[in-house]
């Protein structure tokens, strides 16, 4: 963020400060500091220069020096904006937003009629969410600068107090106060902006005064302030007060003009179905299914036929769906299948035809749907073997194939395989005949043959538990992507399928092409970033995890600033929205996981540095994954919402486990200092509690999440908690014994030996399990990688903790000093025990190295090249799949072995 304030009044000062701003804005904080010192030599008391010096110091990591400068400034109660703004930036960067309130509180006391200072004071309260003080500041501001925005800032601040009030009486009082304040303004003819009118409606909404809202919307002031259709604005409130007749007539009017607007159809249907339950009929309103149907048909007839609109056709399906809820719609509308088929017939040439239909296909009774699945395929004269020869017909054919697959009974592996091969043949035929017409930025209809084939290869693979069809899918999708570089559906599928085989590096080659950034790191993290560590790709995992953490950190710093913008521009509706959004992303479960994963993974793949204590775990972690990114074509996909919440619950359980583990490690580091046991007794106690809580959480998770899940190509792979808690390696014993050992060493308790012995025997015993997972097939590769990723994480942790113990017992600086230190017999014994444990870990590392050295190589046979050879294609194409898989596996295995070597070397250095 640029540091420079928009205007500095004093020209001389501005000139002298300019170079400091320039350096700060360019990120050269050292130069900025030098420049500030230079200015301060000439005028040592210049507050603005000192404030900028504090900022430069802070950004150079000299926190305490920076604070000293800031504290001295605070004492002087500066009141010039340049100084205050520079101080504000410093406080924002160290998350001390309340300090900003304090400096402006002091400033307005010095200069009580300064509008600018007061408005900064207001914003400082906005940042900390102190609505009451906001109100006070805004009213004070309005008193000497009677401008509308300030008045409405005060009103909004009252609304926010009401929204956060604990008891309903207080809430009621506050809201009626806000309402009165606005109404006074209306009476005095002072309301002048659209957003002020919207704020008034918001206040009435919070009090559920629907009639008042309607009166206001239908009045002259609203019309004057809020341009556009007032009638449309009435819709939600007609619904609220049950004005079904008016709603019905209004929606009919609107639909007559806008035949494609779903947001008018839905309330229209609501009104029809409400009116149906009322007695008596009315000629003007649609209060029966028949009238409703007639209305829709009239719209269809009135829309020009060269460009049919989806709206009225889908409206008919919606009517069917609503009638089917508790009745039989067939007498009025015929069969649902026929309606769906009709829709397909009209819109099959649009890629959206089947996505539109999906909701309605799933409402058809299963048997009926399955019996008629061929109707969808054949409704335009195509069958599975048709060979359309232009883009429009290909899209139609593809739509029919999609609808057929969504409705057909679940097929056997053989059926899926033969469909997949058939679809692949269609794609290859298009390729040969020049019908793959995609460009660098647009994909084409024929691509869909390829992606749908890939789905079917995947279904077959799952049935047979055989990776061969997945290899076929990968080869085909790489070919599709080769010709259609923009096709992100193919990219997402490829990433997903590579991960099914545990091939993270191959997946990464595609992921890079997606250019995922910013918020997408959050919404799409599950597709790739979350799968890197369990596939042993730790270097890449670390990179992506830290990108995500950086994004999150920036967000935390920026998000309250965005709320101040909403005030500045008077968009009161957005104040609440942006505030809540800030909270939602702030509490993102995936970002919290990234912080912990990164810290733990760095212990394995990074240098032996203490992990950073991550930010506090969000109280209610939020789910921000976009699970609809990968399109699903399976008819058995079931309830996606249920799936989403279930998988999220698992991810959060995993997050809590990892948080517990990391917290324990951080506490170990804190306890390993030279205070005596008594001085650190409360911390030691906290550590013991933390370890025990981690252990029992792990146990209880084993009971809840013990079941293995079926995987889907369009959904996240099973949560990592499953492999962790169901592992035959007893992680509870491994971690708790190791952590307790460190704890008791720090406490100087002899029980440390017992824990060390227990840790040793568990480690030795776990070697059998390692051997048992050492030679997976390609199908089992992903599971095997994940199994070892958990074990490697333990190796990282125990190696680091042995380092902590070593430093505690024989600090590096003591070792260097020539003076011989005498050790107590107890200390000698502890060192011996640690050495034995260290030996055991080293031996285990050697075993692991051997396992990875002898990791099986797989064969990656696929038939695509053979099929391609049959075609007359001018350009030779070589599928990159085999190469990507081979070199990708080699890369991770080499990486793992290197990491292990480094750990072994480090462990040796401790002895």
């Amino acid at each position: 963020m640029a540091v420079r304030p928009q205007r500095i009044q004093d020209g001389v000062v501005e000139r002298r400060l300019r170079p400091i701003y320039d350096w700060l804005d360019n990120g050269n904080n050292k130069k900025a500091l030098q420049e500030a010192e230079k200015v301060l030599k000439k005028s040592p008391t210049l507050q603005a220069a000192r404030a900028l010096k504090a900022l430069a110091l802070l950004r150079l990591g000299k926190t305490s020096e920076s604070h000293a400068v800031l504290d001295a400034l605070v004492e002087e109660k500066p009141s010039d904006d340049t100084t205050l703004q520079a101080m504000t930036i410093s406080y924002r960067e160290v998350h001390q937003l309340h300090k900003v309130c304090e400096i402006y509180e002091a400033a307005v006391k010095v200069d009580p009629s300064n509008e600018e200072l007061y408005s900064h004071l207001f914003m400082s309260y906005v940042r900390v969410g102190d609505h009451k003080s906001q109100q006070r500041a805004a009213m004070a501001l309005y008193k000497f600068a009677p401008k509308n925005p300030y008045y409405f800032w005060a009103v909004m601040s009252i609304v926010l107090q009401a929204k956060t009030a604990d008891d309903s009486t207080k809430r009621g009082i506050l809201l009626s106060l806000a309402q009165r304040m606005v109404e006074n303004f209306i009476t005095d003819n002072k309301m002048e902006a659209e957003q002020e009118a919207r704020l008034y409606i918001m206040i009435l909404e919070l009090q559920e005064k629907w009639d008042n809202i309607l009166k206001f919307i239908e009045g002259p002031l609203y019309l004057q302030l809020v341009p556009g259709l007032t009638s449309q604005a009435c819709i939600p409130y007609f619904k609220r007060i049950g004005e079904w007749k008016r709603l019905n007539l209004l929606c009919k009017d609107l639909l007559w003009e806008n035949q494609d607007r779903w947001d008018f159809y839905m309330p229209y249907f609501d009104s029809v179905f409400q009116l149906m339950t009322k007695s008596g009929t009315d000629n003007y309103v649609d209060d029966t299914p028949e009238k409703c149907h007639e209305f829709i048909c009239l719209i269809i007839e009135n829309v020009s036929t060269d460009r049919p609109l989806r709206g009225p056709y889908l409206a008919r399906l919606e009517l069917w769906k609503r009638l089917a809820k508790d009745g039989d719609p067939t007498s009025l509308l015929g069969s649902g299948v026929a309606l769906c088929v009709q829709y397909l017939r009209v819109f099959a040439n649009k890629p959206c035809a089947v996505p539109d239909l999906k909701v309605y296909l799933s409402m058809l009774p299963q048997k009926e749907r399955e019996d008629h699945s061929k109707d969808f395929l054949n409704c335009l004269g195509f069958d599975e073997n048709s060979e359309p020869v232009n883009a429009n017909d290909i899209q139609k054919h593809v739509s029919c194939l999609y609808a057929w697959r969504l409705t057909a009974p679940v097929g056997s592996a053989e059926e899926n395989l033969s469909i997949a091969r058939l679809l692949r043949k269609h794609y290859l035929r298009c390729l040969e005949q020049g019908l793959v017409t995609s460009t660098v930025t647009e994909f084409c209809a024929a691509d869909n043959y390829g992606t749908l084939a890939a789905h079917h290869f995947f279904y077959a693979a799952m049935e047979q538990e055989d990776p061969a069809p997945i290899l076929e899918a990968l080869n085909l999708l790489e070919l599709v992507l080769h010709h259609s570089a923009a096709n992100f559906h193919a990219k997402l599928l490829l990433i997903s399928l590579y991960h099914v085989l545990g091939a993270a590096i191959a997946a990464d080659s595609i992921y890079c092409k997606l250019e995922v950034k910013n918020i997408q790191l959050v919404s799409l993290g599950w597709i790739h970033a979350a799968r890197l560590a369990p596939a042993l790709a730790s270097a890449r995992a670390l990179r992506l995890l830290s990108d995500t953490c950086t994004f999150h950190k920036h967000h935390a710093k920026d998000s309250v600033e965005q709320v101040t913008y909403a005030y500045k521009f008077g968009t009161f509706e957005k104040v609440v929205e942006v505030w809540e959004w800030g909270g939602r992303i702030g509490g993102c479960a995936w970002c919290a996981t990234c912080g912990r994963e990164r810290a733990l993974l760095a212990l394995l793949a990074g240098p032996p540095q203490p992990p950073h204590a991550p930010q506090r775990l969000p109280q209610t972690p939020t789910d921000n994954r976009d699970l609809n990114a990968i399109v699903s074509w399976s008819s058995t996909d079931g309830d996606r919402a249920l799936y989403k919440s279930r998988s999220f619950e698992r991810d959060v359980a995993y997050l809590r486990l990892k948080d517990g583990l990391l917290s324990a490690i951080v506490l170990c580091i804190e306890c390993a200092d030279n205070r005596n046991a008594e001085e650190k007794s409360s911390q030691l106690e906290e550590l013991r509690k933390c370890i025990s809580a981690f252990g029992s959480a792990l146990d209880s998770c084993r009971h809840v999440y013990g079941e293995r899940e079926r995987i889907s190509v369009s959904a996240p792979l099973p949560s990592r908690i499953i492999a962790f808690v169901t592992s035959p390696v007893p992680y509870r014993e491994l971690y708790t014994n190791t952590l307790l050992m460190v704890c008791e060493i720090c406490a100087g308790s002899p029980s440390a030996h017992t824990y060390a012995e227990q840790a040793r025997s568990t480690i030795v015993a776990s070697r059998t399990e390692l051997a048992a997972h050492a030679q997976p097939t390609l199908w089992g590769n992903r599971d095997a990688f994940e199994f070892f990723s958990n074990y490697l994480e333990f190796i990282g942790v125990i190696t680091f903790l042995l380092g902590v113990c070593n430093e505690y017992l024989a600090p590096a600086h003591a070792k260097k000093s020539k003076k011989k230190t005498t050790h107590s017999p107890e200390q000698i014994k502890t060192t011996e025990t640690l050495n034995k444990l260290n030996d055991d870990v080293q031996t285990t590392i050697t075993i692991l190295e051997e396992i990875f050295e002898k990791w099986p190589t797989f064969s990656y046979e696929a038939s695509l090249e053979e099929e391609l050879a049959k075609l007359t294609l001018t350009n030779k194409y070589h599928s990159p799949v085999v190469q990507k898989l081979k070199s990708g596996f080699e890369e991770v295995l080499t990486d793992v072995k290197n990491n292990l070597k480094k750990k072994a070397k480090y462990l040796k250095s401790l002895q």
Partner: protein
Amino acid sequence: MTTIRPFTCEDMLKFNNVNLDPLTETYGLPFYTQYLAHWPEYFQVAESPSGEIMGYIMGKAEGLGENWHGHVTALTVSPDYRRLGIAATLMNILEDVSEKKKAYFVDLFVRVSNKVAINMYKNLGYIVYRTVLEYYSGDPDEDAYDMRKACSRDVEKKSVIPLSHPVRPEEVD
């Protein structure tokens, strides 16, 4: 078949099937929230009946005097929902808002290579007002067309008399 509604923050979690398109940029969060906070009426979504985002438009109003105009910052439609007239619907909304704000014209920048978009804008009544050299950074940089359409306030249509010379990005205000 469209629901037109204001873009909300949460849409940023759902717009992947639009934004993964190579010509659509995913900006940092503050960029979107600033537009939301400043020009919420100019930031609209077209949503499918199943709740998917089919496309969205973001824009703003800026300029002094006769340069007061509506600007299209981003207009994008998911590949699965193209050729349905959604872009035109969204442009209409932006033009309506600009009319209500008494703007003189609406303008937008488009890559000179993006033939599909340029044609669409032409069909909607936009003209190439000027070429902005190397406006899009990349390898190599690419020129932009600054396309314009006059609003009713510009009675003499002064805003849409094309410039004869291309301009540099720094000359664009």
